[in-house]
């Protein structure tokens, strides 16, 4: 079947059309979704966490990639879970979901809802892989709701091969004292899209986002993160870092939105991009929208090659230029990879990155 999604990853406020960054589109042909063959859930659910049929606490949930994309997933999903962590539960182990795109599952469209009731804490890890370079399509929608004082840790790790198009669309909501903690690793796929919109409505709610991306060959990565502060004393911290090699390209839109009334809100965003080839393209739109005076908003972005002084330091300790570059990229990714609670997955990701970077040897 065909899909043509519009207004994908839309910037909350438009700018010059010539820059081609106001939004993007997603057009793909893929195999009709059939129910997912295999068990996505690894092991059992931790105590206090159950599959639920209750409707998601927020209707018309807004997502980072937009309505078109969310509607698409909801009407075509062939897998996914609706989880609920009961009030007061601190789940003793993460919920791990593994999806593999293969000839028998060329299309994975997962629709997920995660609700953490008051005072609970839950970790959900979603891993997406593929069998070599088999053509495939993954589209996911994940809605998160952190109740009063609840914590949700979400990790979305994408390690797809060159034959896949992938997207992850997330909409998150936090009540008073709620905390949303998201880790996204966009490390594969021919075209990767990711959009996360978080509404910090409850007083003192928090958002923490850490994302890493790796582009090589002709990969394209398109990201849209929005932290919307409506509650008082809310805080958001978004960190994105990655590397682009060969002819890859990446577009990152990051918005900190202080809505009137979000007194004493704090929003910080940091972006760090390493570029390795003259043919890459890196686009960034770091927005701060503000209607409230009593806030602290900061954004810093830096783009370029590896710092020459740092490279020299490593080489003066014996590493070749290629080894030094690999080390620096791995070091950049390390804090994020380290947070993956599942040891096997952690190793898998490290190896995946190492494998991709081995081509740096030939770059010298």
């Amino acid at each position: 079947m065909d899909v043509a999604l519009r207004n994908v990853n839309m910037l909350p406020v438009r700018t010059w059309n010539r820059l081609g960054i106001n939004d993007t589109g997603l057009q793909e042909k893929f195999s009709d979704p059939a129910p997912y063959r295999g068990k996505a859930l690894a092991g059992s659910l931790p105590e206090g966490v159950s599959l639920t049929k209750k409707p998601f606490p927020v209707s018309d949930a807004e997502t980072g990639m937009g309505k078109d994309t969310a509607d698409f997933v909801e009407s075509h999903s062939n897998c996914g879970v609706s989880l609920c962590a009961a009030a007061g539960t601190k789940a003793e182990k993460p919920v791990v979901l593994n999806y593999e795109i293969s000839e028998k599952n060329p299309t994975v469209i997962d629709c997920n809802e995660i609700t953490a009731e008051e005072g609970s804490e839950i970790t959900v890890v979603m891993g997406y892989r593929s069998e070599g370079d088999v053509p495939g399509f993954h589209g996911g929608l994940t809605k998160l709701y952190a109740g009063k004082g609840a914590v949700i840790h979400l990790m979305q790790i994408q390690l797809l091969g060159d034959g896949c198009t992938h997207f992850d669309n997330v909409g998150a909501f936090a009540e008073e004292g709620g905390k949303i903690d998201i880790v996204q690793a966009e490390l594969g796929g021919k075209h990767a899209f990711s959009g996360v919109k978080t509404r910090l409505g409850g007083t003192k709610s928090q958002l923490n986002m850490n994302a890493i991306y790796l582009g090589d060959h002709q990969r394209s990565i398109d990201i849209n993160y929005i932290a919307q502060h409506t509650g008082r004393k809310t805080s958001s911290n978004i960190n994105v870092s990655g590397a682009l090699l060969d002819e890859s390209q990446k577009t990152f839109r990051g918005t900190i939105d202080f809505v009137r009334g979000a007194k004493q809100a704090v929003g910080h965003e940091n972006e760090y991009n390493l570029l390795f080839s003259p043919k890459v393209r890196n686009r960034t739109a770091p927005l701060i929208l503000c209607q409230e005076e009593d806030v602290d908003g900061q954004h810093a972005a830096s783009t370029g090659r590896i710092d020459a002084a740092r490279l020299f330091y490593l080489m003066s300790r014996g590493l070749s230029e290629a080894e030094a570059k690999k080390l620096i990229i791995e070091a950049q990714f390390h804090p994020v990879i380290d947070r993956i609670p599942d040891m096997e997955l952690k190793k898998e990701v490290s190896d995946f990155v190492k494998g991709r970077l081995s081509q740096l040897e030939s770059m010298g």
Partner: protein
Amino acid sequence: MEKKKTMVKDIDRTIYDIKDKVHPSYEVKEGLTPEIVEEISKTKNDPKWMHDFRLKSLEIYNNLKVPDWGPSLDGLNMNDIVTYIRPDTPMRGNWAQVPDDIKNTFERLGIPEAERKSLAGVGAQYDSEVVYHNVREEVRRQGVVYTDMESAIRDPQYGSMVRDHFMKLVPPTDHKFAALHGAVWSGGSFVYVPPHVKVEIPLQSYFRLNAPGAGQFEHTLIILGEGADLHFIEGCSAPKYNVANLHAGCVELYVAKNAHLRYSTIENWSKNMYNLNTKRALVEEGGNMEWVSGSFGSHVSYLYPMSILNGENSRMEFTGITFAGKGQNLDTGAKVVHAAPHTYSDISTKSISKDGGTCTYRSSVVILPQAYGCKSSVNCESLMLDDRSRSDTIPVMDIQNDDVDVGHEAKIGRISDDAIFYLMSRGMSEEDARAMIVTGFAEPIAKELPVEYAVEMNNLIKLEMEGAIG
């Protein structure tokens, strides 16, 4: 613990009322007809190429859409504009109709009586004609050409140079208001500085205000020869009052190899104005372009001076401040395209919003594939003075090769209570403390301006902080 806010006296102002029919949305084709453009061309004695150019621009104008981003242009009344730019316009300024707050501001800023009238577009040029004339004499000795645009087009010596450059950097196809400008432009300055000539005194466009249309659709064309050096100052801090409410000017700057141009602007159009100005500079090898910009006036502004770094080792520096108060929606910023290797750009802006005003900082930094070894740094800081206002920062970077060093920083916040307390503990009233901090915030721009302008700008800020200016 209640955080005290400065009580800003809210002076009731009556904004000038355009009494004619008010159209709810901007009209596309009506109003501006080829006949009117023909009339304008005839009155100005345009050479044929300019006459044709105007008509072609009108065609382009009719086919372009109004931008779908940025502040609303719904209040723009095209019929009035059209009426105003007719050479035989019945619409003329009348001192009695000039709003009181404008008159008061002239008083507060110490503008002499005669200048007030000229700034309000209601009087003849007193004194400034004379001063202007003297300035021209001085620079003429250096071989500098400084004349009005209409004369420049017809000049036997420079006419072809003007024709070769006129609206080539900002073509009418660029956007709707560039096309409008191409059709109805009037007035403005042409400056040519021969190679290796350094113009010691800044040239000021202030002297150029004259009758209907001019000042609103003025075209400034500055061409610097190789190694030349010029500082050009546009505008002034006194509010420029105009009967019709659109300013669609155009500034084209050509900075040749190793030349240096500093273009300073303090813009304080009256608060009913739509300021849709297009400024662009083309910088060749080793050239250096500096923009200094203070935006205080207008109801709505779209202003993004753009620099094209076309030659190796060329550079651009932009320093600007935008202050949006009640009823203002100022959308300003800068654009730069790195089209050659080893180029450098630095954008540093500050913005202040208060009293329900909206400030938007909008920028784009594009580094093309062939522009290796470039460095770009963007720094924008926004100050919110209350929770009724709005401040948005919308920067975009498009980097198309890896041999770059691009940094970006943005900050937004309010005046810190600790800073106010510190200044108050040294005797200043809360109001004075705030004004001092805001003036300090604007300091980086003030220090780039000639002293009189810096002083005027600081006075302007003080007045804004007191809520005295409309």
